């Protein structure tokens, strides 16, 4: 990876991304999640299983993808839109270095603005109880399973880190593929991630949020997380999607034309 990472591009990208006005937007979803968590913590008894639902479903299907969308499409897409990318591309730097460096910067920023707030919110929530799990036959076979707050927090944090990686690979690729990256990304997040993947079981296999939930559940072992995929499937599919998206982004950027569209 170090051979692909270019510190000069990273420095320019950091300056560019954090200098734009929309950088303020990065913190909004995280702020909403934390405020929402505090409100639920105050209003709900500790036995209710809301942390897994809120931090899992809302966090992984809305907070993470929206933050990654804003950041992932701006690190490269904004330069493509305004044409300044030409100064980067008219140098002998490999296109793979450009894509990987931008992806790394976007991932780190998403981790800061979404994965860490997810951890903070999970620690504030302090865990909860899962619904009764069936451990044996008969009417007396229902017992509540208590999930440790720290286990859930760690699981959600690791899942959020994984989601930051995968979502950004997808959104960096989308920003090279189309000049309407935000619109395409929003449709993807709202229709696929937030809607279809939660209601259509087959769609989970191609859902980044479910990869994150699957990985989170590997640590938390909480049925309330509603993880539709196993840890192994989530890790393998996440790795495949990340590598495929980055490879496609490199190929598209190599065919970048001055009109801003791949030939």
């Amino acid at each position, binding site marked *: 990876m170090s051979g692909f990472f*270019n510190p*000069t*591009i990273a*420095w*320019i990208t950091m*300056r*560019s991304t954090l*200098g734009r006005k929309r950088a303020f937007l990065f913190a909004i979803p995280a702020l909403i999640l934390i405020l929402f968590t505090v409100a639920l913590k105050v209003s709900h008894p500790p036995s209710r299983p809301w942390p897994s639902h809120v931090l899992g479903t809302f966090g992984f299907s809305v907070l993470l993808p929206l933050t990654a969308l804003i950041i992932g499409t701006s690190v490269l897409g904004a330069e493509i839109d*305004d*044409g*300044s990318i*030409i*100064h*980067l*591309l*008219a*140098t*002998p*730097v*490999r*296109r793979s270095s450009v894509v990987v460096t931008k992806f790394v910067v976007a991932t780190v920023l998403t981790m800061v603005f979404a994965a860490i707030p997810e951890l903070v919110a999970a620690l504030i929530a302090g865990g909860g109880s899962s619904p009764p799990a069936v451990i044996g036959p008969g009417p007396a076979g229902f017992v509540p399973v208590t999930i440790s707050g720290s286990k859930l927090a760690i699981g959600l944090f690791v899942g959020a880190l994984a989601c930051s990686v995968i979502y950004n690979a997808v959104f960096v690729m989308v920003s090279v593929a189309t000049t309407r990256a935000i619109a395409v990304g929003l449709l993807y997040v709202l229709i696929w991630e937030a809607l279809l993947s939660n209601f259509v079981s087959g769609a989970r296999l191609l859902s980044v949020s479910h990869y994150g939930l699957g990985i989170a559940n590997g640590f938390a072992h909480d049925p309330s997380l509603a993880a539709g995929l196993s840890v192994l499937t989530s890790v393998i599919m996440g790795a495949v999607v990340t590598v495929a998206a980055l490879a496609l982004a490199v190929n598209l950027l*190599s*065919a*970048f*034309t*001055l*009109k801003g569209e791949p*030939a």
Partner: protein
Amino acid sequence: MTIELRNVSRWYGNVVAVNDVTMSIGPGVTGLLGPNGAGKSTIMHMIAGFLPPSRGELTIASGSTSSGSSWRNPAIYRQIGLVPERDSVYAFLTGEQFVFSTAKLHQLPEPGAAAARAIAMLDMAGPADRKIATYSKGMRQRIKVAAALVHNPEVLLLDEPFNGMDPRQRLHMMDLLDKLGSEGRTILFSSHILEEVERLSGTIQVVVAGRLAASGDFRAIRRLMTSRPHVFTVRSSDDRLLGSTLIGRPAVTAVELTGTGLQVRTSDYGAFCRDIAVLARDHGVRLREVLPTDESLESVFAYLVAN
């Protein structure tokens, strides 16, 4: 280094932007001249590696060693410097940071020294520590040229480089390009302004409607341009008398009396301008207006294409 285009065409759907262009651009300064929309930028983009030709072959070679095509070949930017027409730079960086980071992207051994040299060459040392966002258009153009020159390229491509420059900056840039060309570098710049090309380049490539209309020594093409038929509108105190005397001059090919004056066709721009003044004086006619009617660059190009 030599840039070779052989039967290069480029089209977008049904629109042909560049049509079967063959040209060779060697060391020295070459102007790519043509009206807006003629295909100059498309040719520049193809040479710079930001557009593949739809058909034909484009190579950049040093002596007998070919560096190949620039399309999908980032390594070629070690030898090419590009100044794009679009006025988009990293406005949040200072001029010095922009040129320095470009030097680092080129992996130069001493990026600081290379950046300082390029900035000084463009006379930008004073404002180099200011953010590019505060620069005038001419200053942004110069800092882009400094970044394009920071790695000392053998080929420099400039797309409409004089846009936005004031006359002093323009002269400075022309002198710089002249100097770089005389050092044996291959400098190609595009322009739609005849005077810029006239001042700078010995060699020009004239592009009209996607086709190569003329190619070679500027002076020869200029002669072709000036010896083409010209049409003047003339108003005087006695149009009929002036018309009858003008028709006897060899440089004048036709005279028409119109409702508002005379329309005169001439094959020699310079001779006509001298003759009309002498004839008017000798016959006591007062000239009120002598106006060339078709001096637009487009009409010059149209003539070149037709011939």
